[in-house]
């Protein structure tokens, strides 16, 4: 498993995911819009919970886990077309990151690319956040 995915796997474990769930989510290609073996009552909620965790992981990696910023993560799951996740900062009313991706056949490479994309956007947003924090104060 690659570096970033490995880090994400450890993070998921700390959040209560068991080893078999982590394996199904991160090690194998998904057999649909979400791994069949993990499907709950509502596939959209399953997708959204995972997108939320991806974004939360990216936020903690970039801003740390004790940031005083007021983040809001909004996952919008869809099993037919692309799903979306927004990372917002509510004190400065800023959209920090936005990911649009179809989760069908999600595989380790795509998941890692998505996390990298989120991290990159969040790193970029730091400049914008400092300007806006300064301007707003």
């Amino acid at each position: 498993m690659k570096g970033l995915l490995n880090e994400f796997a450890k993070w998921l474990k700390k959040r209560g995911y068991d080893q078999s769930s982590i394996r199904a989510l991160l090690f194998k290609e998904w057999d649909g819009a979400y791994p069949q073996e993990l499907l709950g009552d509502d596939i959209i909620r399953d997708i959204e919970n995972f997108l939320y965790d991806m974004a939360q992981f990216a936020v903690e990696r970039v801003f740390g886990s004790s940031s005083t910023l007021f983040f809001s993560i909004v996952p919008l799951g869809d099993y037919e077309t692309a799903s979306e996740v927004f990372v917002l900062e509510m004190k400065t009313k800023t959209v920090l990151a936005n990911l649009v991706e179809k989760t069908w056949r999600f595989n380790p490479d795509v998941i890692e690319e998505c996390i990298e994309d989120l991290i990159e956007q969040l790193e970029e947003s730091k400049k914008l956040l400092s300007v806006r924090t300064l301007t707003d104060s």
Partner: protein
Amino acid sequence: MGNEGLLGEFAKWLKERGYGYEATGARNSSGFWLYAEWDGSIVSLEAEKFLCEMARFSVENVFGSGDSTFCINVAVKWRRGSYSEVYVLEMKTKTVLADLLEETSYFCPEAMERCLEHLIEELEESKKLLALRSPADL
């Protein structure tokens, strides 16, 4: 509640978008959604679609329908038995224009009207912020 005021305006807007106008109780009519308390059996996709319509109506009310200066996106999360969230975002300037947090399982006309007023007020307020935030700054 009659068809006057902001809810009446919203009902007309929904009608233009293909919703039934009469309060027939049919799920896809504006009557069901607007003038009766939601019974909690509404499924998330229907509720999210409707909350999205409320946000889009508010956007058109404040910014007009033909303005392509902005790239407005609406993100809605409906939760049964908990607070739903609505966000109106402007993507060119990466700005959150409005946000709403509301218990919508048993949404009633009064609460709906209050939510529309809240969204419109926040969107009006956001005009100042948008004037300061140029896409070129990003």
